């Protein structure tokens, strides 16, 4: 690694370090829940290594425990993970030029935390080279993903319920809020966020988590529309809006 790439890597590690304290308890919780659902340690670990996505893992496990058909568990968990395709698309302008095998590794390690920190940082450091961007991404991954596996095993070995009074359920929401807050820096970003939140609350009745995806798309449309309006002036925006 070059010096600049090395410093980008360590910046990633530093930026992501706090997430260790979020992701580890979450993985621990998954290990505990998996054991309670009847999985052995190896099965719980295989789940975490193969899927590496907390929300989808909890969804699949919950449905399997409720004796839902395997196909329903699979489709529901994948629907929860559909946002990963959006992350993938969103990172492509920044990392698309990397070699295919590196992109494959990026794809495997694409989780909420690695996406959220990387996209925010790439937007602020437009001058970064590809090796800096990749180094940063894997820097962010380092204190997060390996511990996802480790603490799944720890949780599966402990196998006891963690008291709900600890408020661990809220570790994930606080993480996402803290990641998004610094990105709310312009009117289009605020419009996207406000629209997505409103739509998400109104569309919770949709099956298979489709409300989340619809809300996400509506937020993106709102952000893009406001960007057109504020950047190019009123007249052009009106014309483009009619065409959209």
């Amino acid at each position, binding site marked *: 690694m070059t010096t600049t790439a090395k410093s980008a890597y360590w910046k990633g590690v530093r930026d992501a370090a*706090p997430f260790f304290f*979020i992701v580890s308890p979450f993985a621990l919780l998954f290990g505990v829940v998996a054991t309670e*659902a009847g*999985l052995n340690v190896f*099965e719980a670990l295989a789940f975490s290594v*193969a*899927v590496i996505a907390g929300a*989808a*893992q909890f969804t*699949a496990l919950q449905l*399997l*425990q409720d*004796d839902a058909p*395997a196909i329903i568990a*699979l489709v529901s968990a*994948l629907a929860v*993970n*559909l*946002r990963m*395709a*959006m992350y*993938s*698309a969103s990172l*492509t*302008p920044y990392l*698309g*030029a990397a070699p*295919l095998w590196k*992109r494959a590794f990026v*794809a*495997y390690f*694409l989780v*909420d935390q690695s996406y*959220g920190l990387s*996209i925010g940082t790439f937007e602020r450091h437009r001058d970064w080279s590809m090796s800096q961007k990749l180094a940063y991404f894997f820097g962010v991954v380092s204190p997060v993903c390996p511990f996802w596996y480790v603490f799944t095993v720890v949780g599966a070995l402990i196998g006891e319920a963690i008291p709900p009074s600890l*408020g661990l*359920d809220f570790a994930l*929401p*606080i*993480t*996402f*809020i*803290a*990641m*998004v*807050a*610094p990105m709310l*820096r312009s009117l289009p970003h605020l419009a996207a*966020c406000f629209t997505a*939140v409103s*739509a*998400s*609350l109104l569309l919770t009745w949709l099956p298979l988590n489709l409300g989340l995806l619809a809300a*996400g798309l*509506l937020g*993106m449309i709102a*952000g*893009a529309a406001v*960007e*057109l309006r504020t950047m190019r002036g009123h007249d052009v925006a009106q014309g483009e809006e009619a065409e959209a």
Partner: protein
Amino acid sequence: MTDRLELWLVIAGLAVGSFGLRFVFLGLVGNRPMPEWLLRHLRYTAVSILPALVAPLVLWPAATGGEPDPARLGATFAALGVGVATRNVFAGLFSGAITLFALMAWLG
């Protein structure tokens, strides 16, 4: 849940499916230029999908049986407010966590 085959089918299917979703654009589009209208929408992915994911969890947390909870609402406002003001992820995270624990302890 005793059906091992079913469990492993779900794990394998999720592994392939999740990787596919993560790889679809990074891998297949790669360096080819994407149209401006698409890029313009993609810029707002993070600020749309993450808040949409969180909003129901904030208002109707499963841990309280779906009832709005002052501790979790307070933590949300703290994380959001400090995050916006300081532009620092960790400051927001820390404020949210402290507020959550403080309010949970205070409200019992």
